[in-house]
């Protein structure tokens, strides 16, 4: 029982990442009808926004220390951080500690503008082309983005720690009445899950309760009619692309303390996210979220030692196996809408 709870918890954070990326993919697909293979790259760019921002916060200069000399007798230097100079000692230290959550503020405008530039500069020209062309050009774009990041940040993972407060682990077992130290769960993963839930809720609320969201939903249902009503639907869809990019980027920002970002992390997530989207049903937002969490938890459950002993290797293939079964038995995925991407 404890093991099952632990694995469900472990599945939640991976599931949150899948759900967030799949949500963005579905937003793009549902609005613009474009299959965006560069979405994993956007996730990766978000993670590197966090890296860049924490690098910026820890910019320092050296100043000579008047009293001290090092062991060779040379005058020694102190590293002085600009943030501490500007905002005061304590506030500066706090900002450096909270670099990852603070990068959200930095990542949102950056990711939205990357998304808008991508849509206006490239994807706009591919609406009329077949899906295969869209896949190929975004695949090429993903390679380019990935290599640019590799050029500037190198090929090695860059550790980006969470704030001090969240570095410990939470003893779930004790809280739920089991033996202590059985179900231990890092705080940051809880934060990640909560963050993902908030983002997902915000996206849904935005689409459901604002006029802008209403127009976008109308455009998803019937683009032409909305256009005929005199609404500039293209502009709204461009903004939705920016939002989808920001969702992927934020998923990346908050994921950095869980896994140190490297340049190919996006591709690793992309393949699985596509499986998630297809399982959830192309174009269905709730389906993407549901399938994201479902597959994340299934993957963790399958890596329990009891299950692996029973069917060796199941943890490696479970997601693909489920995807194949669902695609063959439920052609539209779990919650796919009628008439979207059907043969």
């Amino acid at each position, binding site marked *: 029982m404890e093991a099952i709870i632990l694995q469900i918890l472990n599945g939640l954070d991976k599931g949150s990442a899948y759900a967030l990326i799949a949500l963005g993919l579905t937003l793009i697909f549902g609005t613009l009808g474009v299959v965006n293979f560069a979405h994993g790259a956007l996730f990766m760019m978000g993670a590197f926004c966090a890296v860049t921002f924490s690098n910026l916060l820890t910019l320092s200069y050296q100043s000579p220390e008047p009293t001290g000399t090092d062991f060779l007798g040379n005058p020694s230097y102190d590293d002085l951080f600009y943030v501490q100079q500007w905002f005061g000692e304590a506030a500066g230290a706090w900002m450096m500690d909270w670099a990852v959550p603070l990068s959200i503020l930095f990542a949102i405008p950056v990711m939205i503008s990357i998304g808008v530039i991508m849509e206006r500069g490239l994807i706009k020209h591919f609406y009329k082309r077949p899906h295969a062309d869209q*896949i190929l050009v975004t695949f*090429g774009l993903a*390679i380019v983005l990935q290599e640019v990041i590799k050029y500037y940040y190198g090929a090695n993972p860059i550790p980006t720690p969470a704030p001090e407060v969240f570095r410990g682990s939470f003893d779930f077992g004790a809280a739920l009445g089991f033996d202590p130290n059985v179900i231990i769960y890092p705080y940051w993963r809880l934060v990640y899950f909560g963050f993902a839930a908030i983002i997902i809720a915000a996206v849904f609320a935005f689409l459901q309760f604002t006029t802008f969201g209403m127009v976008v939903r109308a455009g998803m249902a019937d683009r032409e009619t909305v256009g005929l009503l005199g609404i500039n639907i293209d502009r709204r869809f461009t903004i939705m692309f920016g939002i989808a990019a920001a969702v992927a980027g934020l998923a990346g920002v908050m994921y950095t303390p869980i896994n140190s970002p490297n340049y190919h992390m996006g591709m690793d997530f992309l393949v699985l996210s596509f499986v998630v989207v297809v399982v959830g049903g192309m174009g269905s937002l709730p389906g993407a979220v549901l399938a994201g969490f479902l597959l994340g938890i299934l993957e963790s459950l399958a890596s329990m030692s009891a299950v692996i002993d029973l069917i060796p290797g199941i943890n490696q293939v479970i997601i693909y196996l489920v995807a194949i079964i669902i695609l063959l038995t439920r052609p539209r995925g779990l919650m796919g809408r009628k008439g979207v991407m059907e043969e």
Partner: protein
Amino acid sequence: MFGLEKKDLRLLMFVAGLTLLAPFLLNPFPEGSAMAQFNAGYPDLMQRFVIFGIFAIGFNILFGLTGYLSFGHAAFLGVGSYSAMWMFKLFGMNVIPALGLAIAMSGLFAIVIGYVSLRRSGIYFSILTLAFAMMSYALAYSVLATDMDGPDKQGLLQKGLTGGETGLQLTLQDPRILGAQTTESGNIPVPSLFGVEMRSATELNLGDWVFTFSAGYYFSGVIMLLAFYLSIRIFRSPFGMMLRAVKSNQQRLTYTGLNPKPYTLAAFVISGMYAGLAGGLMAAMDPLAGPERMFWTASGEVVLMTILGGAGTLIGPVLGAGAIKYMENILSKINSDILHTWFAFLPDGLENLIVGMIYPFIGKGWHLTLGIIFMLVVIFLPGGLVEGSQRIGRMFKRKQADDDKPTATTEPAE
């Protein structure tokens, strides 16, 4: 001849000429000169050109003709490599049975995967093939690499069917029933064709030039020519017409009372067998098979090759495979020192500027160049390099026609 039209025969002869003369054509710069690093005429790389050419030709039969975009073709490449390795381990180092088993096994895999995946089309088909390939990768990496008959068993299945992360390798203990278990000097024998070792090569020195003729290259080259010939025949056959019909309008095909499924499945299996053949050849050239050959990036690579060269054209995939492998092996070798020697004639500041501008695109950054070229091709030249060269050719023809006209009109005035 060969049942081909004149135009196709010319193309086949052209490719045959290129393949046979490749050791000369790819070695245009004398040994030791500054340009020698652009020489691609060494056996290892030439073998890769033709083997990936076969892989891409096969992929093109599926994608170019039917329009089904498979993102899991590397699975068949891996299956072919593993089967060939097992043939080397069990029966002997002759490459013919190894390639036979590689083709047969990948064909069987393709029947199963194709039968299931082809129930869907479009992006769903891509995801299904991707899922199958990733499953094969994961299985080859982990489960199939554990010994199935207890840890104390010696020899063959010591590391399972696939050998896991390190890959499947030849050992001295392999039975090799039909061939020698070891060479006379006690080493592991190398793959051969009736006694001609794949690694054997002769060198020809002409002045400063050194040309290498390797048995392995010519063997794979001949096989690629056969594969190319077969693909021309498929393209021109009624079967090929049916596949094109599937691409242009599957619904209309069904309405006329034809079932597209057997045709697409046949195309899928044929292209899977091509991939298996390529995988088997890879194992024959370098007896080693690892799971990374099945990873989805390997599938993505063949997609890149086919699109870059021109999907649906005969020669495109071969060109694309050559271009990408050339970039991977030659462009990636250039480093900043070499760039500095090239631009040494410029004033220092300008030299540094130019080197700094070029540097991100070469060496380790060759993927960036590949990505940019690929995007440009998809955006501006959906027909790939082949369409590009056709456009350039047409431009010249038009120019010539324009040039001809005035001379024709001026002549009578003489």
